[in-house]
Structures are given as structure tokens and as C-alpha cells.
């Protein structure tokens, strides 16, 4: 029986995976969606969401320190109950499934508008699915290495998009125009696009973190978040009130004003960057789905999880076929509650486990000292 290959990945590889997760769902549609309610204040909204995400990171490190080579599934089943753990993992499976669907949909809409113009759902699915399935089958180590290899190129592409957008007329976006209600509604509605560290919890046993490498995680996270913030800022600077019309932020900031049109179509940079990022994100989410699925059904092998992923993906797409905009547009209705549960409640549970574990350790130490003193 073939299981997902148990190889470990280095801290750097985990870091670049995190950057890919940070990019997920935020580089195309999100700036425009968030603008609708909170205008340019969306930048502050994502700042808050990023800050909430970052709080999770120390919890992850502490958990890793206390349970260095243990799976999250085992930790949770031991500390809470196996039944609840199974339930949590069921939610995990659904969560990553929908993250994959959303990434695919957003990118698909982009491709459809920008490149293919006609229907090409079939093409997109047969181009993407085998690759991400293969990545899951060969395991975390291989695709983490691939992401590591192309990371600098992706980063370069991203920065190039931002840099080229500076050639056009920009003006400072106007801040503080949305009211508190709209602002917090935006935060609530778009929680699903965040929570990027949860994948780390899922592969906690497969990451090798040497002493002192924790700061790398912060560095890469800040890099990713900084780029997203820069994208939001430049996008709002360029489009201002028409931001709601432009659904593909990374590509749209490259649409040059009249004077630059003669140079040619530089949006191919954005296109390739988006393609690579999307593929990697889908690989991550497919793997995450498989990982949680196989924890639920430990007797099955990776091929079963891939098959289930594909079937669910196809069914969900069949339901939404031709209505992928609905999938994207409705995400603010169905997504926030599970997103809050996964993004914040799970780390909170982990935090409680850590505190209990630390308390137990302390008491054990105390008992030992007491006993030795008694002796």
C-alpha cells in the first residue's frame, strides 16, 4: 500500500510554502472584492487579518517544540478525543477542498477573461489536475523542492509586476472612508482567504526546524505579506474608484495607460506568475486534502485520496459549472464560519494543549524536585 511519502522538508521549504499560501486567493480577485465594502481601507483590513495570522505562528513553534515528531492528528486525538479529532479533520478536508476550488475558480475566471476568452474549463482542468495529483502522489518533499526552486522566479515576476505598474499614473488612495460596520464586515467575510499557517500545523511532523530558524518563518511571512500589501496599495492607487471593476489585480496593474501601449503586452509576466503560483497553491491544497483525508481513513492509500479529491472537485465544479462566479461571489456567505473555526479556533485549541502540557511538565518537575529533596 502506497502512502504519501514520508519525507521531511527543510525550514526554508516550509517558508516558501507559506509565502505561496499567503499569495493564495489574494492576488487576483480579493483587492476588488474587498474594495466594494471598505474601499481603500481594505488595506487596513488585510493588515488586521495578517496580524491575526501571525499570532498563530508562535503557537506552531511551541507545539513543534513540545511534540517534535508527532502528527497533529495524534496530538489532537490524545489530548482531546479521537472522535472530535476526526470531526476536525473532516472540516479540514472540506476547508482545503474549497480553498482549492476557490483558487482554481478565481484563476479560471482570470484566464478566461485575459487569455482564452472562450470556454476552456475542460482544458484548464486537464491541464491542472494531473499535475497537482502527481505532486500529491510524489509527496511533500518533491513539490516543496519545486516551489523552492521556482520561488525566486515567482518572486521576481511578482516584484516585476509591481515595479512596472509604477510607470503609470498613480495617486494616493483615500483612506478612512468606510464606516466601522463595513470595515469589520469585510474582515469577517474574507477570513477564508487568510489563515495561511494552518497548513503548517497539518505537516508539523514533516518540517525540520533547526534552532534559530524560527526567525526565517517571520521573515518570509513578512515578505509575502509585504508584497500583498504593496499589491493592494498599488492597485488602489492606480484604479481608485474603479477598483471594483478590475478583477485581476496582479495583471490589471500592468495594463498600461495609453502612452505605454506601444511597448507590447507586459501582462504576460503577470500571467506566467499567476499560473505558476496557482499550480503550487493547488498542489498544496490537494496535498493538504489528502493528508487530512488519509488521517480520517488511515487504511487507504494516497491514490484513494487523490481519486476522492478529483471526484469531489469534478462534482463541485459540475454543480457550479458555468456559475463559477457564483462560487466566488458567494464565498463570503458560506466561508467565514468554517474559516474562523479553522484559522483561529484550531490554533486556540493547540494553545490550550500547549498550556496544559507546560503545566503538567512544570508539575512533574516540581514533584521530582520534591521527591529528590525528600530523599
Amino acid at each position: 500500500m502506497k502512502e504519501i511519502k514520508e519525507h521531511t522538508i527543510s525550514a526554508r521549504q516550509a517558508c516558501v510554502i507559506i509565502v505561496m499560501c499567503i499569495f493564495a486567493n489574494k492576488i487576483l480577485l480579493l483587492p476588488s472584492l474587498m474594495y466594494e465594502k471598505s474601499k481603500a481601507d481594505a488595506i487596513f483590513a488585510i493588515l488586521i487579518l495578517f496580524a491575526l495570522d501571525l499570532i498563530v505562528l508562535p503557537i506552531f513553534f511551541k507545539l513543534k517544540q513540545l511534540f517534535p515528531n508527532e502528527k497533529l492528528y495524534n496530538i489532537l486525538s490524545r489530548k482531546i478525543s479521537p472522535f472530535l479529532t476526526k470531526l476536525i479533520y473532516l472540516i479540514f478536508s472540506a476547508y482545503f477542498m474549497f480553498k482549492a476550488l476557490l483558487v482554481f475558480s478565481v484563476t479560471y475566471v482570470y484566464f478566461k477573461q485575459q487569455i482564452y476568452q472562450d470556454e476552456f474549463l475542460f482544458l484548464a482542468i486537464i491541464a491542472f489536475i494531473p499535475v497537482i495529483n502527481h505532486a500529491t502522489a510524489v509527496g511533500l518533499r518533491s513539490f516543496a523542492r519545486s516551489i523552492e526552486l521556482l520561488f525566486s522566479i515567482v518572486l521576481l515576476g511578482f516584484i516585476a509586476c509591481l515595479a512596472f505598474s509604477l510607470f503609470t499614473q498613480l495617486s494616493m488612495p483615500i483612506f478612512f472612508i468606510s464606516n466601522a460596520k463595513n470595515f469589520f464586515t469585510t474582515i469577517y467575510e474574507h477570513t477564508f482567504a487568510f489563515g495561511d499557517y494552518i497548513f503548517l500545523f497539518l505537516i508539523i511532523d514533516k518540517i525540520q526546524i533547526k534552532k534559530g530558524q524560527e526567525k526565517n518563518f517571520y521573515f518570509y511571512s513578512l515578505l509575502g505579506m509585504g508584497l500583498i500589501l504593496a499589491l493592494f496599495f498599488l492597485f488602489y492607487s492606480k484604479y481608485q474608484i474603479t477598483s471594483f471593476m478590475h478583477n485581476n489585480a496582479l495583471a490589471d496593474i500592468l495594463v498600461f495607460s495609453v502612452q505605454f501601449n506601444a511597448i507590447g503586452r507586459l501582462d504576460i509576466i503577470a500571467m506566467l506568475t499567476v499560473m505558476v503560483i496557482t499550480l503550487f497553491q493547488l498542489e498544496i491544497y490537494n496535498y493538504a486534502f489528502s493528508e487530512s483525508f488519509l488521517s480520517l481513513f488511515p487504511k487507504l492509500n494516497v491514490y484513494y485520496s487523490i481519486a476522492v479529491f478529483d471526484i469531489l472537485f469534478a462534482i463541485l465544479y459540475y454543480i457550479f459549472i458555468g456559475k463559477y462566479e457564483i462560487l466566488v461571489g458567494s464565498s463570503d456567505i458560506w466561508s467565514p464560519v468554517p474559516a474562523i473555526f479553522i484559522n483561529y479556533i484550531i490554533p486556540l485549541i493547540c494553545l490550550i494543549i500547549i498550556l496544559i502540557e507546560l503545566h503538567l511538565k512544570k508539575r512533574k518537575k516540581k514533584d521530582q524536585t520534591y521527591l529528590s529533596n525528600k530523599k
Partner: protein
Amino acid sequence: MSYFNLKKKISEIKTTLNESSDFSYRCYKKNGQELGFVFLKSIIDQNLLSEAVFMPLQTFDEKITIKSLIHNIIKCADVKKIKEEDIIKEILDGRVVIITNFSKEIISIDLFKFPSRIPSEPPTSPVIQGPREGFVEDMQTNLTLLRRRLKTENLVFKTYKIGSQTQTKIVVAYLKGIANNKVVEQVVRKIKSIKTDGIVDSYYILSYLEERPNSLFKQIGNAEKPDIVTAKMLEGRVALIVDNSPIVLTVPFVLIEDLQNSNDYYTNHHYSSFVRVIRLLGLLIALVAPGIYLALQIYHYNILPLNFLITIADTTQGLPFTPFLEILFIFLLFQILYEVSLRLPSYLGLATSVVGALILGDTGVKAGLISPPGVIIVALSKIALYTIPEQASQVTILQIIFIILGGSLGLIGIVSGFVYFLNYLNELDSYGTPYLAPYSPRIPQDLKDAIFTSPVGDLKQRPKTFSPTKKERL
């Protein structure tokens, strides 16, 4: 009491060797002592035989014993006692076997000789500056070339004979204390496990050594020059020298190896870095240029600048083929010409290029069968292929795959294909070494000699990629 009936024994040997016409023997009698010399005259040095064996034998006046034969009479370096059952093997190895009627012991003398060429510059790895010696078919010469460069007791040659019919010698060469023992053990284990009747060239053992013999990708390094092999061994790699082959194999193999060229170390490192970037670019162009051209033409008109679009649209207007078939046609045309030019005698080469380039290409365009941009793109990718000739065969297959992907799925297909192959290669390990190291996984210290290179003096540590036993270059 006589131990051997010489005539009978010799006739036995002759029969075993199927009375081969190059089988030869000579009997020598003196004072009732008989010595039989059995050999294959095609592979021994007969002059040396008379000078180093017969002449001293004639002048020797005392009673001949095996001891005196070895120590006093025979003037050859390699004389040894052998067992009776090894007689045939020894004869086939180009040795002269001596059997006597006064002793049970049998002697074998190494008088092997066969025509060998002088080490010259191999055609596939010419250098502008640097050593021009290349390996030859004679293994002994090859070992000499290596030994001359590595004057250390740590240089180990371990010989194995493989092939029931060919009995080909395979030498595993490595530097003890530098090469990773696990790799050496693995190589030896794999070589010992080879079961075949013949090894004709070093490439015959590739599939036995590769971890995934069915893979499209090359997993074993090769070199034709002793300086390259020496450098690789100093990095902690293991070399395999196969008799009768001028190609020496090295393991473990990493992809970046083929981007590097011995010339890079004999020129300024800035220039070397530049050239390596060009090679990488060449590789990328070779891989995806036709595919991207097709993708742009079939799916992504809207991302082409208008002027470029006009050129392509005008030139492809009225072609009888769809873009995919056009590119495939030009591709096959080039491949056929390439095969022809390889096999044609050199004096016909010019004719081929005239027919190929001028008549087929130019007339094809004028006849409206193929378009000029198509010819340019395929030609460019085919020329770029030879920036890294070592990878030419597999890249050609990949070109076809990317042409199909580009033609059917557009840019998404190409990017997906690229990521697929990347994932595949990242899973591929060659003797415990990641295939795409030092970039994935990133090994910072090895980046000094990857695409960008530092001066040789700065390379104070052996590449961590190959997990050498001794890390410092001292």
C-alpha cells in the same frame, strides 16, 4: 613422474577454444623437461614472448623449476601462478600460459597487446584552453591517465569482470576518504548484480546503475576527459571505467553538471558564469520555444504585440497545415537532416546542408508550405539544444511533449508540463543526491559552483551535494 601430458593437455585446450585459428602453442624440451606455451597469437606480443621468455630460457643451463621460471628466467613484470581451471580465462585475457611436465603448478605471463590509439582530444568536449587528452578504448591507458593526475595512495581501482561472453573489465575508481562509502558500496553492489552475456560499451551498464532505468532523464554522468573525471572524483564522486570504452561514467549525477563544462574552470569565472547563464537560457529556449510559439498562435493572440501579430498572421495565412502540423513538419525535417548529417561521410556534409537549409527551408517558405517564423523558431530551438549537447537526446523528446502541450492547452499546458517535470525531477534521486541540487533543495555553500561560479581558489569545500566523507579541500 610427470604431472601433465603436454600434448594431451594442449589438445584439450585447443578443443575448448574450438580450434580457433589464432590459437597457438609452442613446446620446449631440455634435459627431459618439457614446457608448453599456450596462447592466442592475436592478442599477445610475440616479440616480447621470444625476448622475455624464450631467449632467457635457452641461456638457462640449470634444472628448470617453477621457482626459477618465475624468479630467474621470465623477464616479465606480471607473472603469476594460476589454477588449472583458469587456463582458458587467462589465455582469453591475452596471457601466455605455461604448463610443464615437471610440476602441477601452472604459470601465466601477461603479454597482452592490442592496437590502441593515442589519447587525443575527444570530439564532444573540445576546449579552447586546457588539457586536450581524452580517454581511449584501452582501459590500461585510461587508468594511467587517471593515476598520472591523482598521485595518491587514496586512489582506489576495484576491478570487476562482467559479461559471460565478453568478460569485460569494469573498474570502480574513487578516492578513499573522500568519496562517500555508501555510494561506493551501492555502486559495487549494483555492478556485481549485473547478469548479462556482454558489455560492449560503458553505456551498456547505465541501465543497471540507474535508479530508474525507464526514466527519460539521464541519471549517470559521463566524461571523456581525464581532467573532468579527476575533478569529479575530487568532489567525492565515483568513476566507472569500462574496458573498450572511452566514456567514463560518474555517479552521483546532478542536472547542473551538464551546464558545467571543463572549459569553465580554465577561463575567468565571470565569463564562466555568463556562459552558464547562456547555456541555461539555451536549454529553456530549446525546451519551450516551439511550444510557446504554438500556444501564442493558437490560443493567445491577444497577448502578442500588434506588430508581431501582423507578421505572424500574414506569414501563416494560406498555409495548408494547422500551426501544430506545420511546426511538427519543420521539426521532423530538421531531425531527419540531423540524422542524415550524422551518418553521411563528411564530404557529403556540405551537400546535406545546402539541400537542407537552402532548398528545403527556403523553397518550403516560398512554396507556402511552411512559414518563416515557424522555421526560425524551430531552428532556434534546435540550435539552442546544442548549448548542452549532453542533454540533447532527452530535450528532443521533451520538445515534442511541449509542442503537443503548447498546441493543445496553450501556455497553461506548458507551465503545467514544466511544473510536472520539475516535481518529477525533484523526486528523482541519484545515489542519495537530489537531482536538482544545489538549487532544490537549496544548498547555499554549493551555489559557489552552480550557475554562477566563484574563482577556483574560493572553492575550499567539497560540494555538500555529494556528501563527501572529507569536507574540506586540503
